[in-house]
Structure formats: C-alpha cells, structure tokens
C-alpha cells in the first residue's frame, strides 16, 4: 500500500462529510441538518445521559440475541452439514424461516408472548438463526475429511477434535456469520424496539420520527454505526489476525 493509499479511508470520509455539509447548506432545511448540527445534538444527548442509556439498552439486547443465535446456529449448522438425513429433513424448514419477513416474526412474537424483553430477544434470534445455520452448514460441508480421519485414527477426544480440527476450519465461516449477523441483528433490534419496547435506540428513533427531528435521528444512527465499527476494529479484526497467523 502506497503512502497516499493509507490516507484514502480518512480522505473519503472527509469528502463524504464535506458533501453532506454542502448539500445541507444549499438545501437549508430541517429535513437535512448539517453534520455540525448533528454533532451538536449528539454531544447534548451524550451529556444528558440519554444516548448512553438507550445505546446501552440496545447493546445488551444485541449481545444476548447475538450470542444465543450464534451458539444455537453453529450447533445446528454443524449437525446439518455433517448429517445428510438431518439436512434433508430440515432443509425446507430453513428455507421457510429464511424467507419469513423480520416484521412478521416480530409481530407474532409480541402477539404470542407479550410485549416483554424475552419476546424481543426471541424475535431477533429467530430472524438471525437461519442465516447462521446456512453459513455454518456450508462450512461443515467443506470440512477436510482427511484431517477428520487423522483425528479419528489417533483417537482424539470429541472435544479436542472440535477444538483443534473442526473449529479452525469453521473459523472463516464463523467470522462471516458474525459480521453479517451484527449488521442484520442491529437493524432488526431497532424495529423490535420501535414496535414494542420503551427504551433503546429504536424507541428513540420512533420518538424523534414523531417529532420530525431528523438531527436526533441521525445522531442516534451515527452513534450505533460508531459502536459497530468499534466492535469490528477492536474485536473482529484482531481475532481474524490472530487466527490467520499460521498463513504465509
């Protein structure tokens, strides 16, 4: 990468903000507040504690539903990928769940189980689960049979086989499921909060939508994007680097 290329991400972000500022200046309307105005709202919400409270509520929902979806999805995906009969039986179920709109699942969960935290988490998990299953199932299908035979021949325990032979092969698929999962889950959580919770970023967005307060809507959205970027750079990328250190 040349020296100039290193500055491209920052440069492109600066160009984007400048274009936004220019468009806001030309339009001069409340419907498109300038970045400076949005930054001001962001700062005020942060100082008042509102932003941290609602962002925290959403983040807790994200962590719980993400963990449940990844754990369950990985186990089911691995089982379907390694067992043809099981896969043949459940394949249609997967297709159905993959194609149910998120909104339908959320409404049904709230109708059936009430406007509770558990319903909200369940709705998010049901939406995310099929994607994780499909991704991990593909990974499980590509597991190197030679390495599995080696593990069997040397009588490795199930735990050691899973930890040292299967998991490293599934790692790229897990990372893919994690990244797409985070992107999908936080969007679904916002709808879940908008429809049936009294806190969280989604709830706030709903409130500011009723007030036609575009600056606050953008401030909360940007806060969440910053959090997701933070997770990518502080957790996912180092994990990726660590697990790929054996490659040339």
């Amino acid at each position: 990468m040349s020296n100039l290329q290193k500055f491209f991400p920052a440069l492109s972000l600066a160009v984007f903000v400048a274009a936004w500022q220019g468009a806001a200046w030309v339009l001069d309307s409340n419907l498109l507040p300038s970045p400076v105005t949005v930054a001001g709202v962001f700062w005020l919400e942060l100082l008042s504690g509102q932003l941290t409270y609602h962002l925290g509520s959403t983040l807790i929902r994200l962590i719980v539903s993400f963990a449940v979806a990844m754990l369950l999805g990985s186990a089911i995906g691995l089982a379907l990928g390694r067992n043809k009969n099981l896969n043949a039986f459940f394949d249609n179920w997967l297709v159905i769940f993959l194609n149910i709109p998120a909104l339908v699942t959320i409404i049904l969960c709230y109708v059936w189980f009430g406007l509770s935290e558990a319903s909200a988490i369940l709705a998010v998990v049901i939406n995310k689960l099929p994607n994780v299953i499909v991704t991990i199932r593909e990974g499980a299908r590509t597991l190197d049979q030679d390495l599995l035979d080696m593990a069997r021949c040397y009588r490795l325990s199930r735990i050691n086989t899973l930890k040292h032979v299967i998991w490293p092969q599934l790692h790229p698929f897990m990372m893919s499921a994690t990244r797409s999962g985070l992107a999908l889950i936080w969007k679904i959580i916002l709808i879940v909060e908008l429809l049936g919770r009294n806190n969280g970023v989604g709830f706030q967005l709903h409130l500011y939508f009723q007030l036609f307060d575009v600056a606050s809507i953008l401030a909360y959205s940007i806060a969440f994007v910053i959090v997701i970027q933070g997770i990518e750079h502080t957790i996912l990328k180092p994990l990726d680097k660590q697990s790929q250190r054996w490659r040339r």
Partner: protein
Amino acid sequence: MSDIQIEVRQKVYPAAGQAAPHAAIQDFKLTLHAGEFVCLVGPSGCGKTTLLNIVADLDQDYDGEIRIARQQARPKIGYIFQNPRLLPWRTVRQNIELVLQGRDATETVDFLLETMQLTRFQHVYPERLSLGMSRRVAIIRAFAIDPELLLMDEPFVSLDPPTARQVRELLLELWRKRPHTVLFVTHDLREAIALADRLIFLSPSPMSIVGDIRVTIPRDLRQDENEIEAFRRQLLDGAPHIKQLL
C-alpha cells in the same frame, strides 16, 4: 509387544451410479509378528490403502476382524498417510503434542524431533516446511503415541530420490531405536526390499495374498543397491507369478 492378526474375509464397495458393486478384498489373512517390518507390495489400485483404512478402523464396512493376538482389543495405531495430514494452524511441535492428548511426553518429543533432524523447526507452521520435512513430522507423530502397529501408506511417494532416501534412512534409524510392528504399503519393490523383514505380494482387485517372502539380506548391507537388485532379480526369477503382477 504382541502379534497382530488381520483378517478381512470380504470388503465390497457398493454400487455407485453406473458402477456395479465390486469386491475390493477377498480372503485376506495376515499375522504380523511383534516388532516386524512388513511391506505390502502390489499394483496400483489393488486395494492396499483400503486395507490400511480397515486396519486403522477408518473403514468399518467390511467382514472380518483386526485384533491383537489372544486378545479382543484392537491395536493402538499410528498412521502415516500418503499426504502428511498435518494441521496447518498448529506448529510442528503442537501437531505432535495434539495426538498425545495432554500426556506429558516432552522428552519423547524432543528425542523424536532430534532423531528426525527437526528440532530447529519445531515451532514452525507446516506451510513453511518442504514435503520431505512434513513427512518426517508425520512419522514423528505416529511414533510419538508409542503405537502397537504403525501403518505407512507410501510415505515417500512424490519425494525426489535423494529426499526419499534421506527420509527412509531417518525412518529406519528411528525404527531401530523404537522398534514397532510396521505395515508399510508400496508398489516399489526395491524400496520394500530395502526396508522390510517380510514382503507380502498382493493380487489385483479383489486383493488377496499371492506371495509371502522373507528378506534375507542383513540390514547392514541394505545400503548397497547391488545387494537389493540381486535379491530383486532372484525373487522375480523364482516367482514368475509375482513378476507378472509388478
């Protein structure tokens, strides 16, 4: 160490697509004496690898039994595959230690690494090793578990002749220090004579034993290519049915 009995009455591959079912092995019975180095020699595709997979319990769809003599238990197997099958995300030492499953065998691993001249590479990942070195790691891994039976499936195939010779000599050095019962598959008769106590000749599919010959050249003379060649000629001249197979 005990003798090991291998009996495969029949191994049939079921029909697949257009291909009809076919018997890969028929009436195969072999006793490996403790500490013996036995080479299976047969034409390509005769079922040698199938037999090794059965012995290693990787293939359970057959009629027969593999057991330690006078016991019902299956022998503990160390398997050196054609492809080394090392885990690329684990270093040389970690690959070896994995099959030890937590057992502390630091001295054994150090000894094996030193004998196979790999001490310097113990913390290197397999992607950075040559094929010859990877094969040596696979040999160490198999010896490390102190197996009752070592299976080797053409472990020197696709190595250039000098490297193959070097790895072969290192293997023999290790085997002399740690004499395990070995079942070694090859289709190279010279290689088999250089290594084995006993040569088992196999027919094409369905595989069965067509010759069982003891190698009489003293081990200290096996470096001599002329000795090997003389034994090979004598063997083939005396057994035209084997000559026809190879």
